[in-house]
């Protein structure tokens, strides 16, 4: 391959990804700009809160329950190597509220919500429903994207809080039934050790992850290609992009919150 060919091979994907980042940023900026300008669609926001928040509870709850239980077992057996079995309650609590609650909750919501938003909006795009909205004097970003992004940003922290509690409960269940912890001691250790910011940082992460999930769903859905294939591709891209961005954002936020 000629040197120019190599350069072109590197340059094109780099330019394309930069352009994509720019488009997503503009899309996000447009959504934020519309957030505080009328008309508002409170009914749409309520519907989306229900869809994104309430109906994600079982998935997020089960994920947290099993994760909390497994975490307790792991820390117990790991801690046994240096006689530190007693740290189980505090490590489970910290691990859940700081990391696993928001990250696993966010990933589960990405799987459930980013995909369904992208498929729904992609189908609307393909069947000209988005064009029809425009002809009916309704801004599709305002009517479709803003309520979803708002609802996800509000709902995911609540999901994370519920997930945290269930996860800690999972650890406690395993602790008292399988690891011979005293129930009262386990709970006291958990409560004494947790700080407000441990929980708060996880909730902030949740809000950011919720924003990412809905943003990716809306962006890929509204820019879906033509036909069923286009919708399928949009759905896949939304889930992949949301998941990767959640993990990247998690690292950055952890860096910001906990290193000083």
């Amino acid at each position, binding site marked *: 391959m000629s040197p120019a060919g190599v350069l072109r091979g590197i340059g094109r994907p780099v330019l394309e990804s930069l352009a994509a980042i720019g488009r997503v940023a503009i899309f996000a900026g447009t959504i934020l700009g519309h957030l505080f300008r009328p*008309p508002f*669609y409170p009914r749409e926001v309520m519907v989306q809160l229900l869809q994104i928040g309430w109906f994600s509870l079982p998935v997020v709850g089960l994920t947290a329950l099993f994760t909390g239980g497994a975490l307790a077992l792991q820390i117990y057996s790991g801690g046994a190597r240096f006689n530190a079995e007693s740290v189980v309650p505090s490590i489970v609590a910290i691990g859940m509220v700081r990391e696993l609650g928001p990250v696993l909750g966010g990933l589960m919501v990405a799987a459930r919500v980013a995909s369904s938003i992208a498929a729904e909006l992609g189908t*609307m795009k393909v*069947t*000209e*429903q988005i*064009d*029809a*909205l*425009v*002809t*009916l*004097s*309704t801004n599709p970003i305002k009517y479709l994207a803003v309520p979803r992004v708002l609802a996800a940003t509000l709902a995911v922290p609540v999901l994370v809080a519920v997930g945290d509690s269930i996860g800690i409960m999972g650890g406690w269940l395993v602790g008292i039934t399988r690891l011979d912890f005293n129930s009262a001691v386990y709970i006291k250790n958990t409560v004494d050790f947790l700080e407000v910011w441990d929980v708060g940082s996880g909730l902030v992460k949740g809000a950011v992850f919720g924003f990412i999930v809905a943003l990716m769903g809306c962006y890929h859905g509204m820019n879906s290609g033509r036909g069923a294939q286009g919708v399928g591709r949009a759905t896949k891209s939304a889930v992949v992009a949301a998941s990767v961005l959640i993990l990247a954002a998690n690292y950055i936020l952890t860096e910001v919150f906990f290193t000083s």
Partner: protein
Amino acid sequence: MIEIKGVTKAFGPKTVLRGVDLTIASGTSMVIIGGSGTGKSVLLKCILGLVRPDGGAILLDGQDVARAERDAFLARFGMLFQGGALFDSLTVWENVAFRLLRGFQKRPKAEAREIAIEKLRRVGLSPDVADLYPAELSGGMQKRVGLARAIAAAPEIIFFDEPTTGLDPIMAGVINDLIREIVVEMGATAMTITHDMTSVRAIADHVAMLHEGVIQWTGPVAEMDATPDPYVQQFIHGRAEGPISAVR
């Protein structure tokens, strides 16, 4: 008055419109005919700004539509999409009353519903369909709901993309009469795409034929049969032989 001047549009390497010139006077009914895939739907979308033309200009009452204030501009239009484009998360009546339930044409829910049911009746649908979802309707019924939605807010200018395809002959007749009525009684300007020659004769004041990206022929409907233009003659008589190739 809508003036289309030298509008061009290409999708990638494929040129669809090569300089379309057409004028539609206010309060008249223009019917666009032309082979499948010649860009009729794209032309309507260009006027509405859903597709951005590559070149040329579109004027509404002398004003460039690309520079018009979007909300006020779109409020004057109604559009029936070729595929219906009903919102499947809303019931039939909420679809029809969409414009009446939000924005500056907003009115009380009960009143909007009443108007929706009245419009549904005009397209030959009974009030029981009002509370169904679009997915529960047949293709032809969806088309008619789309039509009811297009006319619900009594727009000045209405675009119908194949209003009678998929309908039985009786229902097609009802829809043709309705479109004619909207133009004659309400003074609306209509632009209709159709392949159905019965419809053309029933609806049109003027006819324009789009072929290979330009308006091949345009004139009053009365002159359509007598025109010597071989393209029009082939099209209206549905002949396989002629200047329009069968493979497109």
